[in-house]
C-alpha cells in the first residue's frame, strides 16, 4: 500500500511504514521468516510515529485539516446515516453544490443533515467550488433549516470550508445577507442542533452552519476567523509569516475548547482521519449519538434559551 500525498513532517514515517508493509508482504509471499527484523522495524516505527504526530504545531494541523484525502461531508453522511436523500436548490436562483443537505435516518430518528462539500478531484472541486459557497448555498441551508423546524427534525451540520466565496456574483446576490440570516435563524430554531467541524472551519462561511447547541470538532480540524495567510498578509504585510500566524490565531481544537468556542474534541486516529476513515466515522457517530440523546430530552424552549446563553458566555472573563 502506498501513502499518497504525505505532508512534509510525516514523510519519513510514512516511507518507513511503507517499507515495513512491503517487507511483510514479501515475507508472506516468499514464505521467509523475517519476524525479528520486522519486530525491530516496527518498534522504530512506533517511536517515529509518536515523535511525528504527538505535539503537532498549529501549522501542521492546518495542513492535516486541509488534506485532500480527508473524509468530507458526504463521506460522513453515507457512513453514519441511513437512507440519505439529498435535496437541492435555494428556490431563488440556483443549486449550489458547495453545500449539500437533505434527509436521513440516524438510529431510527429522521434528521436533517447539512454540510459544506469539497471535491475529491479537480473536476469535482470545480463543480463544488472547493467547498466555498455562494449565497445560494446558504439559502439552501436556510430552507432546509426551516424544513427541519417545521417537521421537528434534529439538525446535524458538517463544517468544512475555506470560507464563503469572495466573488462578484456572491456580492451581487447578497453573501452577507444570506450568512446573517442563517446565524439569526439558527439561534431560534426549536430543534436540537449539532455542528461538527470536520476539516476547515473558515470564518463567516463556516459559522453560517455553526450556531448550535453543541459544537464538536475533530482533533485535526481547524476553525478560524481568518486564514493564516490572510492574517499574515493583512496584519504583517508578509504572507511568508503564515506559519507564525497559524499559531497565534488559536485555531486548533484544544485552544478552542479552552476559549469555550467548541464543546468537545473528537479524537482522530493518530495519523489523521484520512488514514483510517472507518475508525473516524465510528468515533463521530458515537459522539453524535451521545449528544443527540441528551438534546432530545430537552424542552424546545430550553434548547433555544441555552443556545443563546452559550453564545452570551463566549469570551467573557470568569468573574
Amino acid at each position, binding site marked *: 500500500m502506498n501513502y499518497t500525498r504525505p505532508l512534509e513532517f510525516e514523510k519519513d514515517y510514512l516511507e518507513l511504514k511503507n517499507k515495513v508493509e512491503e517487507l511483510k508482504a514479501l515475507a508472506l509471499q516468499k514464505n521467509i521468516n523475517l519476524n525479528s527484523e520486522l519486530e525491530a522495524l516496527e518498534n522504530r516505527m512506533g517511536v517515529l510515529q509518536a515523535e511525528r504526530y504527538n505535539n503537532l504545531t498549529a501549522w501542521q494541523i492546518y495542513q492535516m485539516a486541509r488534506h485532500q484525502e480527508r473524509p468530507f461531508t458526504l463521506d460522513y453522511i453515507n457512513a453514519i446515516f441511513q437512507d440519505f436523500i439529498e435535496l437541492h436548490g435555494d428556490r431563488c436562483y440556483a443549486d449550489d453544490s458547495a453545500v449539500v443537505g437533505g434527509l436521513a435516518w440516524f438510529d431510527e430518528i429522521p434528521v436533517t443533515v447539512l454540510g459544506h462539500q469539497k471535491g475529491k478531484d479537480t473536476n469535482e472541486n470545480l463543480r463544488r467550488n472547493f467547498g466555498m459557497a455562494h449565497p445560494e448555498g446558504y439559502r439552501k441551508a436556510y430552507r432546509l433549516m426551516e424544513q427541519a423546524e417545521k417537521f421537528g427534525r434534529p439538525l446535524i451540520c458538517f463544517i468544512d470550508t475555506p470560507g464563503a466565496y469572495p466573488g462578484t456574483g456572491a456580492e451581487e446576490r447578497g453573501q452577507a445577507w444570506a450568512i*446573517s440570516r442563517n446565524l439569526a435563524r439558527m439561534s431560534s430554531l426549536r430543534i436540537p442542533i449539532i455542528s461538527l467541524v470536520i476539516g476547515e472551519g473558515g470564518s463567516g462561511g463556516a459559522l453560517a452552519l455553526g450556531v448550535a447547541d453543541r459544537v464538536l470538532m475533530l482533533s485535526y480540524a481547524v476553525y478560524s476567523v481568518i486564514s493564516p495567510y490572510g492574517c499574515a498578509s*493583512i496584519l504583517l504585510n508578509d504572507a511568508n509569516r503564515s506559519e507564525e500566524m497559524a499559531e497565534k490565531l488559536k485555531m486548533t481544537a484544544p485552544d478552542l475548547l479552552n476559549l469555550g468556542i467548541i464543546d468537545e474534541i473528537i479524537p482522530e486516529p493518530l495519523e489523521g482521519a484520512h488514514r483510517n476513515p472507518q475508525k473516524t466515522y465510528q468515533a463521530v457517530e458515537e459522539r453524535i449519538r451521545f449528544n443527540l440523546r441528551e438534546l432530545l430530552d430537552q424542552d424546545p424552549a430550553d434548547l433555544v434559551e441555552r443556545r443563546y446563553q452559550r453564545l452570551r458566555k463566549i469570551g467573557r472573563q470568569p468573574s
Partner: protein
Amino acid sequence: MIKDRLGFKSRTKYATVKPRWEPGVQTADGERCPGCGSPPPVEDDARRLMVCPDCGYHFPLGVWERVRLITDEDSFVELDAQIVSGDPLGFPGYVEKLESARQDTGLKEAVVTGMGAVYGQEVVIGVMDGRFMMGSMGLAVGEKITRAFETAREYKLPVVIFTASGGARMQEGMVSLLQMAKTSAAVERFSQSGLLYISVLTHPTTGGVTASFASLADIVLAEPGATIGFAGARVIEQTIRQKLPSSFQKSEFLLDHGMIDLIINREELKGFLYKLLRFHKGRAM
C-alpha cells in the same frame, strides 16, 4: 424620559468625553475631498454634516458628531461604557494597538451605545466608529451591540444602529467571529418581540458586521457612496483576477441589487428616521 427610566443622573456623556477629532479636522491636513478634490468643508453647517458642499461626498463621521447630529440636544445617555476588550488570545501587539486607538480617537471601543431621542422619539442607538481599529468587531463591540438590543427589548424601544466596520477583529480570533452569532441571535430575539430595528450602513461596512447584525434590520438604509459588502474588494480582485469597477459594492450598487431599502443623504437622515419611527409607534407596547 429616558434618563428617569434608567435611574441615571441627567448627563450628556459626549460632553464629558473630549473627542480628539473635532468635526472638520477628521481629514489629514491638506487632504482634499476624495470625491471632487475640493478642500474639506469649512462652513458651520457643512462641518456639522461633514458633507462636501461641492460634490456631496460624505466624509466618515465620528461617534460623537453622529450622536449630536441624530439625537436631540442633551437626550443621549451612554450605556455600557465600561465594556472594553481584553486580549483573549494574547495576540502579539494587540494591547498596544488598542491603546493607540484609544489615544487617537478618545474612544474606548469601536462602538458607542446609548439611549436618546430623535425629535422626541425614544430610541436605543448604536454608533460605530471606523477610525477605531477600522471599526472591527471584537468581544466588546459584540457585547455592547448585544446589550443594546437586550436593553431595547426590555424597555420596548426601537433600535437604530449606524455601522462602520472592516469586519471581525482578527486579533481576537474565534472570539471575534462568534460575535457575529451573538449579535445576530440578539437581533433575532429582539425582532421576535415585534420591535423595530433600523440599520444605517455608513462607509465602510464590510465583513462580519455586514454578515451579521447590519443586514438583519427591518429597514436597511445607507449613506450615499458608502462601501458595503462581505469580502473586501482586494480579496475579490485576487480571486477573480480582474479589476473591479469603482461602483462595485457602493451603496447605489447595493440598492440596484436589492440589498438595501433606501439611500438617504446625511442632511435628511434625522428627519427620515423620525418618520420611520413614527410609523412604528405603539408596536409591542
